[in-house]
């Protein structure tokens, strides 16, 4: 499975700046849109859990990760297994970065501005060097973006940057790159902030030496076992990082991973299973770090297949779910109730739409109206990501109250021939902003459109194209609200909840932000292991 549990690929873009603020920041580029705000503009809801006083240098940070194997790889621009995320962020950086509050901040670029609906300009920071001492220049950015867009490389970021014309990425000067798009696209800033769209030096290949600009240099790597990363003494953020070395160890089993943490063989671990959270909390020298993820496991109703071609049935099914009960049972309450809409961290997410609650009477009456009383449906699921099977079973139980019989099929071959052709199925998704998510799952050209959205005759696609072409964030949000309303009223997704990221670490480690909205585990691995240290 492709974007397997890995899928946390956030496109979360933080509060895009208001147009007024943009204009102020953009300065001379009057009318241009500058996404990257000043670094200091944080101050959101998350808090540093363990300040541990003044950061100090030194030590080897050992991280235990699960979900890896022989497929593990290091590539500055893609991942296959989940541990790949932990390894990528140690050595590679992006032009823009998401902070702990989902706000886009400057990274290797000082600014990224949309000069026209289909033209973007990237201004690089000066004085950044790669691990081999070579200075970062516009040539590296051109090479990096062209590599992402080379389809035979099979890189993660290609789909999101599809509007960029690889032949029309031009070097303006040594620190400036211009992108001429194939069509209007307001999401380029989001895409450039994705952790997997790392900047690599000209000539970079996966098989060659791993050279990035990140806080740690690659020393050794054996897939499925471990990797060693050593401090980059010439890192451009002066004084950072703090550890001498970071060692990332693959664990085949979460029990072994927890035991290694309990016995002090690792300093932090990703994805503590719900049943083990209290075990970890029971140890005074360990702490649980809970981040607000926005992963989702939708129940997908294909809107053109019976019985779901009748919107009454879709609405009835959405009213059958007891979302809070499902959250408690599937994720032991570590998450938040959802409202059948994805991308909750998108500033354009419409939180004004009323929260749906279980309403069996209303569901029954809608089914009656559709002439589908005592309905029997098949629900297909698989062990593709945590919670997929549980969600299906719990839905089946809850549906009985409305007289609906749901036969759950747990099929190991789920992603085979039948995938995307099923009337009713469970899938999984990571965190993305609204428009990038639509491109992936909610329009006919999307690779994974489980619900066969939108209905024929709907103006949804027109709205989508309009949103892509709209550089103004608040006007774009209005359009997105209209799109969300359509999905809320007629869509095929049942999205009961978003699950949190639950990780654990030794209290020797300081600097993690709890409640972080970082898309990757452990506060995006302590932001590339540069904001954490041994107290």
């Amino acid at each position: 499975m492709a974007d397997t549990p890995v899928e946390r690929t956030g496109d979360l873009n933080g509060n895009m700046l208001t147009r007024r603020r943009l204009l102020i920041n953009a300065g001379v580029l009057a009318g241009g849109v500058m996404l990257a705000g000043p670094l200091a503009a944080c101050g959101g809801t998350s808090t540093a859990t363990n300040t541990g006083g003044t950061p100090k240098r030194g030590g080897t940070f050992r991280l235990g990760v699960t979900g890896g194997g022989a497929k593990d790889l290091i590539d500055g621009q893609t991942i296959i297994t989940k541990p790949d995320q932990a390894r990528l962020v140690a050595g590679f950086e992006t032009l823009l970065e998401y902070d702990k509050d989902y706000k886009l901040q400057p990274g290797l670029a000082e600014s990224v501005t949309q000069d026209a609906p289909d033209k973007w300009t990237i201004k690089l920071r000066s004085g950044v060097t790669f691990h081999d001492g070579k200075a970062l220049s516009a040539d590296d950015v051109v090479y990096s973006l062209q590599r992402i867009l080379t389809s035979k490389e099979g890189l993660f970021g290609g789909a999101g940057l599809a509007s960029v014309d690889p032949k029309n990425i031009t070097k303006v000067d040594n620190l400036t790159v211009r992108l001429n798009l194939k069509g209007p696209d307001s999401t380029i800033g989001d895409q450039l902030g994705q952790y997997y769209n790392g900047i690599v030096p000209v000539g970079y290949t996966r098989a060659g030496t791993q050279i990035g600009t990140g806080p740690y240099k690659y020393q050794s790597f054996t897939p499925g076992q471990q990797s060693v990363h050593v401090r980059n003494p010439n890192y451009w953020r002066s004084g950072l990082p703090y550890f001498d070395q970071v060692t990332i160890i693959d664990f085949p089993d979460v029990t072994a991973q927890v035991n290694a943490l309990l016995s002090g063989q690792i300093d932090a671990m990703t994805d503590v299973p719900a049943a083990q959270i209290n075990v970890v909390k029971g140890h005074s020298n360990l702490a649980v770090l809970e981040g607000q993820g926005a992963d989702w496991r939708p129940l997908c109703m294909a809107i053109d297949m019976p019985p779901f071609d009748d919107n009454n049935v879709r609405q009835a099914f959405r009213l059958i779910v007891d979302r809070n009960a499902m959250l408690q049972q599937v994720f032991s309450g570590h998450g938040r109730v959802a409202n059948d809409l994805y991308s909750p961290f998108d500033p354009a997410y419409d939180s004004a739409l009323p929260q749906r609650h279980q309403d069996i009477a209303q569901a029954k009456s809608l089914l009656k109206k559709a002439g589908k009383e005592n309905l029997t449906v098949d629900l297909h699921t698989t062990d593709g990501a945590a919670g997929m099977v549980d969600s299906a079973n719990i839905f089946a139980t809850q549906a009985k109250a409305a007289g609906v019989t749901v036969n759950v099929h747990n099929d190991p071959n789920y992603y085979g021939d039948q995938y995307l052709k099923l009337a009713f199925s469970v899938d999984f998704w990571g965190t993305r902003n609204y428009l990038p998510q639509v491109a992936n799952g909610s329009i006919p050209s999307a690779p994974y459109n489980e619900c066969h959205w939108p209905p024929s005759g709907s103006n949804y696609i027109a709205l989508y194209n309009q949103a892509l072409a709209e550089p103004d964030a608040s006007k774009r949000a209005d359009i997105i609200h209209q799109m969300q309303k359509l999905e809320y009223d007629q869509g095929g997704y049942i999205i009961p909840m978003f699950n949190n990221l639950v990780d654990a670490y030794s209290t020797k480690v300081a600097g993690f932000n709890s409640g972080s909205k970082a898309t990757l585990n452990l506060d995006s691995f302590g932001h590339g292991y540069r904001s954490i240290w041994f107290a």
Partner: protein
Amino acid sequence: MLERSGGPTGPARRGGIRMFILRRILQGLLVLVLVSIVVFAATQALPGDPARAILGRTATPASLANLREQLHLNRPVIEQYLTWAGGLLHGDAGTSFSAQEPVTKYLSDRIVNTAFLLLLSGLISIPLSIVIGAYAALWRDRPFDVITSLITLVLAALPEFVVGLVLVVLFATTVFQILPAVIVIPPGGRPWDQPLGLILPVLTLVLAVTPYVARIMRASMVEVLESDYVEMARLKGLPERLVLRRHALPNALGPTFQVIAINLAYLAGGVIVVEYIFNFAGIGGALRNAVQDHDIPVVQALAMAIAGLYVVLNLLADIGTIVVTPRLRTRL
């Protein structure tokens, strides 16, 4: 297993121990051929399109075509099987889909690590269980026998993942923190570089095997000690040491060899669980990963390797039994 019953014992089967071994080797090869057919059928010759099953959600027409080519799926099933089996005979188990390197290269370090773990566990558990079983029989119904019988019965009833986890809780995490809970073998490293980390996995495997063997050894020894020839030896006035070493022990070992072989072969499977618990970088983890990733060449190679180990161990047990049981030798 030995053919204790059936089969002519007349002149046609004569040929001594050499012919016997040759015959057993041929039988073993036949078993391996049958196993290879089953393994192949279960992994590759399934109905439906294995390529699609393997690639799942990421399947693209190009990657499907590639994989079908790599698996020779476009050719008749018989031909696919012969290509694969022929490769195995030449030591070529194909290329791992996940690791993108030859299966033999990918597995070689892991096989060494697992073999070391098995060998060490075997070297400790076999003498230990023989000694425990023999003394329990000798001191029948005395405290040592009662206590060891009880302990071995309890341990035999516990699956090794329970034993392993209990050991971790006792010695590594909750009660005492004196031993590492997992063994982290750095790339290029070897398990024997970390003797402390080996203690719990080896102990788990020893506890998994020793009870069975010790109980069989005890039963077998009890039977022998009650036999006429031991009685005779004692009546002749031979010293008890000599009675035990010369007459009782060798005869009690025969049936025990079979059980040891079965248990060692069982270890090759049980080691998967143990490697899992202790994060040991061996074939167990590789097999689990390969199954999860639909990495068919690795699954096939490991299934064949484990089947091979079963055949070899059984062969050795049969030979061992023959060697210590003159009675059987004369029947060859």
